[in-house]
């Protein structure tokens, strides 16, 4: 890899802003180290969820060039399925059945939506996934109901105190957060192995690079699309179960897709590591901004404060669109004219 200073400048700048932004509260003694660490961890946990949703986006975008607006709806649908099925069977069985459901859903979407629209304008496909979004939102309610449902992961909700020997007051962390992080790391690791080490993974990467050439070596696009939508479905299940287990399964899960959008802009639409790192940056960034940027603003300008969490990610994404539209790790797009 060659190192091009001018090209890497935005990355370096972002890194610098991150480091300064992260440590300012400590340096200015705005916060005790323990509390600061708690905010950081909280941000990372939220970031893991963003990463998972963004991962679904990236997988589908890479393989089919489709911007899948329905990723959030898929998370909701999967979470609803697991929550309601778990009322009748053990959780692991519910998750297995949900996997089957998501695979079938992938097949149906490929057959009914993607195949007829192949080679159409990107906008047509985007609109189609928008249609899928609303269908899944509604259909999920039709099948599973529209209340708020709980997913019981069987993990104690009692937070644990750690590091209380070293840090005054210690740090409280939730067991389910830790479990979520572990599961997410395992999932990403498994996906990376699948993509790098198996023939199917190689075929997936080939399709992501060049449709035409992939077909010419006998890779059937249709089957690859089913696989990649199914994988995105499985990722949606993991995200849905983690989210649902924490906050309950409800319609607002679907809106997490809107948070994943800035993540993919930040990380790059075609980069799996980008989705993960982008998710973590946005998760941590918005929590830090909310907690440590809000109060000074209130003090200085007599504002009401709050709400920073809602816009921070999108402003960061906007900034990236201006400076580095391909994202941190995306492929640079150069058109020949």
């Amino acid at each position, binding site marked *: 890899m060659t190192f091009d200073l001018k090209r890497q400048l935005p990355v370096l700048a972002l890194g610098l802003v991150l480091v300064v932004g992260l440590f300012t509260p400590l340096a200015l003694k705005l916060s005790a180290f323990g509390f600061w660490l708690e905010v950081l961890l909280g941000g990372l946990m939220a970031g893991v969820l963003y990463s998972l949703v963004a991962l679904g986006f990236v997988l589908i975008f890479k393989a089919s060039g489709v911007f899948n607006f329905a990723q959030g709806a898929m998370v909701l649908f999967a979470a609803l399925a697991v929550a309601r099925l778990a009322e009748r069977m053990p959780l692991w069985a519910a998750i297995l059945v949900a996997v089957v459901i998501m695979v079938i859903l992938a097949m149906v979407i490929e057959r009914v939506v993607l195949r007829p629209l192949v080679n159409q304008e990107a906008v047509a496909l985007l609109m189609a996934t928008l249609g899928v979004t609303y269908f899944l939102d509604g259909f999920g309610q039709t099948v599973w109901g529209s209340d708020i449902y709980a997913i019981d992961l069987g993990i104690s909700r009692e937070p644990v105190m750690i590091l209380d020997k070293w840090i005054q007051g210690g740090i409280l962390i939730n067991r389910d957060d830790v479990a979520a992080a572990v599961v997410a790391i395992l999932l990403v690791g498994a996906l990376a*192995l*699948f993509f790098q*080490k*198996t*023939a*199917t*993974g*190689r*075929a997936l*990467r*080939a399709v*992501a*690079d*060049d449709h*035409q*050439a*992939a*077909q*010419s*070596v*006998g*890779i*059937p*696009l249709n089957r690859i699309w089913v*696989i990649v939508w199914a994988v995105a479905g499985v990722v949606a299940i993991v995200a849905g179960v983690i989210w649902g287990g924490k906050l309950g399964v409800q319609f607002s899960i679907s809106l997490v897709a809107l948070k994943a959008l800035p993540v993919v802009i930040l990380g790059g639409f075609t980069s799996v590591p980008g989705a993960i790192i982008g998710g973590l940056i946005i998760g941590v960034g918005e929590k830090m901004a909310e907690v440590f940027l809000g109060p000074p603003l209130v003090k200085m300008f007599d504002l009401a404060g709050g709400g920073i969490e809602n816009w921070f990610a999108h402003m960061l994404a906007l900034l990236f669109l201006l400076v580095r539209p391909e994202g941190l790790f995306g*492929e640079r797009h150069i058109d020949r004219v």
Partner: protein
Amino acid sequence: MTAPETHLHAPTRKIGEVILAVEGVSLAFGGVKALQEVSFDVRAHEVRAIIGPNGAGKSSMLNVLNGVYHPQRGKIRFKGKEFADMEPHRAAVMGIARTFQNIALFKGMSVLDNIMTGRNLRMHSGILAQAIRVGAAEREEIEQRVRVEHIIDFLELQPYRKTQAGRLPYGLQKRVDLARALASEPEVLLLDEPMAGMNLEEKQDMCRYILDANDQLGTTIVLIEHDMSVVMDISDRVVVLDYGRKIADGTPDEVRANQAVIDAYLGASH
């Protein structure tokens, strides 16, 4: 460069029966007639060239053979079987591989992985078996890898095995494209302007690889070029297209002497 009268082929090669037959194929895009009533055949183990000036319909012809375009009229027979609605990946399954004029490599993948995709069709273990790498899948991967190493040796790509394909210079990318196509052990290999944009040395290398593939692997070659001199040296028979019509068909010497061909290339003085 003086064109040698004799072919560079080793005489061991045996030209076989007709393997691919094009019968009265017409293809139009709206009002533009890309191909009109084109017929020709390709015999097993031969090197068959399709030449013609720019816009003659060469690429269209190749894309019809490959199933990218579907002709409005006419038939194509491959090994005696007629096919109507060919699709690129089905063509690959049937034993027709191709390379691309504007190199379509998997740029983010290593040279080795690129060529491995050519073996994709020969892999039969399921996704789950691959994922957990149980015996058969593992064995299969190793088996395919051996074949791919053979192709890598054959095209002298050893030093670039682990290099990301998109980072190679142009001439080498073309060679990787050829390697990927050969890796699928096709019966017929379609080459879309394999020499385009190359310097003389690269062209000579490419000619050698094509002839070696034809000779040692027995691959039937159908190639498109608009550089006539190169084609004449390596082809057994040549089809000449102009404005979507076939204007000549025969050995390089016959074609070279054909008045219609001379007119098409040099511009007729009417």
